[in-house]
């Protein structure tokens, strides 16, 4: 046999073996979730996505973008099928975006923390208070709250770098008070015990801070996948609420740099902002109207409130179907 023939036969054998061998199973379905930079508050959602991968064989890719507006634009354009929807979700829908909220990811996780010398909310008048940016959820909550506090007008400075940057500014004395998330408040307390305290707690506000937003075309073409996703999210929220160690254990590579015990304590503080029924009560009925009235009051939606219907923003069908399966809490 000549060298040429030998090579030909070997190549043929290799081809037959390759063709006859077991092929890797193609992933049945794929999902891309777009989010702003992953924080502790996102962990239950990430774990929900991991459950979807593990239990339902859906391949999930998470991509971080810098701003909530960028996330919303990318979901609208279909660059990702789902995304985390913060304040820009509402004006986007008003401008005609084809997206829907299918699950409440969290109620507000924000607090206003101030130097101990500022004993009450009245003391915030005229002091430097760090917030995120003009239309961010935390700023909207702050404005909404300050409307109920006549005569209290802090000098709001914007630090759009996220809660850790605002916490750092507070710790370094660049500002006298700051609005940031609960985990940042814990960090401040750990680093400077007794020097700062929480003045306003937004975590009991009956509004949604962030929602799981789905691209309209995707929701219409894959309703069963959306339902699976919602169901796994609920599973994650419920198991984690029972024992936050679950989220720590199931987090995979996410937030691996944070010590497990520390992460668990931060998550324990956050448990109250996760609704075990996916925020259904704020997506339909009177709760949804209250939710939308907040958006109108802070200017994210134009008024009057009566022109808005919850179903314009939320599609509760997948959540209701999932709750029917696993029961309401």
């Amino acid at each position, binding site marked *: 046999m000549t060298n040429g023939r030998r090579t030909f036969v070997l190549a043929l054998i290799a081809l037959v073996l390759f063709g006859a061998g077991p092929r890797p199973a193609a992933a049945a379905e794929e999902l891309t979730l777009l989010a702003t930079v992953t924080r502790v508050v996102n962990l239950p959602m990430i774990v929900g996505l991991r459950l979807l991968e593990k239990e339902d064989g859906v391949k999930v890719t998470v991509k971080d973008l810098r701003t*909530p507006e960028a996330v919303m634009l990318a979901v609208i354009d279909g660059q990702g099928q789902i995304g985390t929807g913060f304040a820009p979700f509402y*004006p986007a829908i008003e401008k005609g975006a084809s997206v829907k909220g299918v699950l409440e990811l969290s109620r507000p996780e924000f607090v206003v923390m101030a130097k101990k010398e500022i004993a009450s909310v009245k003391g915030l008048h005229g002091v430097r208070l760090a917030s995120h940016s003009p239309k961010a959820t935390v700023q909207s909550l702050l404005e909404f709250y300050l409307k109920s506090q006549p005569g209290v007008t802090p000098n709001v400075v914007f630090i*759009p770098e996220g809660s850790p940057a605002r916490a750092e500014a507070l710790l370094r004395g660049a500002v006298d008070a700051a609005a940031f998330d609960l985990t940042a408040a814990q960090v401040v307390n750990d680093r400077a015990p007794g020097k700062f305290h929480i003045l306003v707690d937004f975590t009991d506000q009956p509004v949604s801070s962030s929602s799981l937003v789905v691209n309209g075309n995707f929701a219409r073409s894959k309703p069963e996948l959306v339902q699976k996703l919602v169901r796994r999210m609920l599973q994650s929220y419920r198991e984690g609420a029972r024992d936050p160690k679950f989220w720590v254990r199931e987090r995979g590579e996410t937030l691996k740099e944070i010590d497990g015990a520390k992460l668990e304590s931060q998550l324990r503080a956050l448990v109250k902002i996760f609704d075990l029924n996916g925020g259904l009560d704020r997506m339909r009925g009177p709760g949804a109207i209250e939710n939308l009235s907040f958006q109108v009051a802070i200017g994210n939606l134009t008024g009057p409130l009566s022109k808005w219907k919850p179903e314009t923003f939320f599609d509760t069908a997948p959540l209701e179907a999932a709750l029917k399966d696993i029961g309401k809490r």
Partner: protein
Amino acid sequence: MVFALRTASVVAFLLLWEWAARVPISFNFPSPGATLTALIALVRSGALLSATVTSLQSLLLGFGGAVVVGVPLGLVMGVVRPVGRVARVYLDLLIALPTAALIPLVILSFGINIASSAVIVFVFSAPFVTMNAYGGVRDVRPRLVEMAQAFDASWGQLVTRIVLPSALPMVMAGLRYGLSRAFVGLIVAELLLSPFGLGRLIMMSRSMFEHDRMFATVLWTLLLAGAALTALARLEARLLRWRA
């Protein structure tokens, strides 16, 4: 001919923009007409002018500082060679520096105020102003210097009669480049450092998906930068009339 070409390029740009808005290439992409309407509304409401005044303060402070520090430093670097060799390394590093990454450091060092924004504008523009002034001195024709020395020119005369006039074209080019970088720095600072001025308007419109207002503000910033650069080019033409 030049006028026709300019007009044609503007018309082509507007047509392309209109097409992009009609497709649309992305959600809520505004047309040139919608942008112009939003621009007029912003000017009428006074929001744009007050934001411009705020932004110009940090621009003047930052770019002014870059000129006051950068031009003399560049000239000294060119004239005193050892200073040039040492300072050049730092300038090269500053040019290569991802300036946006400095922002958290600037917040902590200067606080959250107009000074921080001016510092960012300075960092964006000063290296280019300095480098061009330095390059201008380095490019002075040695034969001119030799000739002046042959005529017993003093060191002061050498600098004022030979070095400065020869370096002036490069210095002016550096100022123009530095000014355009200052505008970039201004918007970066106002978007990333703390939203105020034009950056705040851009951010608010973006958050509300009012893309026509956002484009209008960006267009206004471009017009401002264009006007400032044209003014500087006129000044340059006036100062360098002797070269014609």
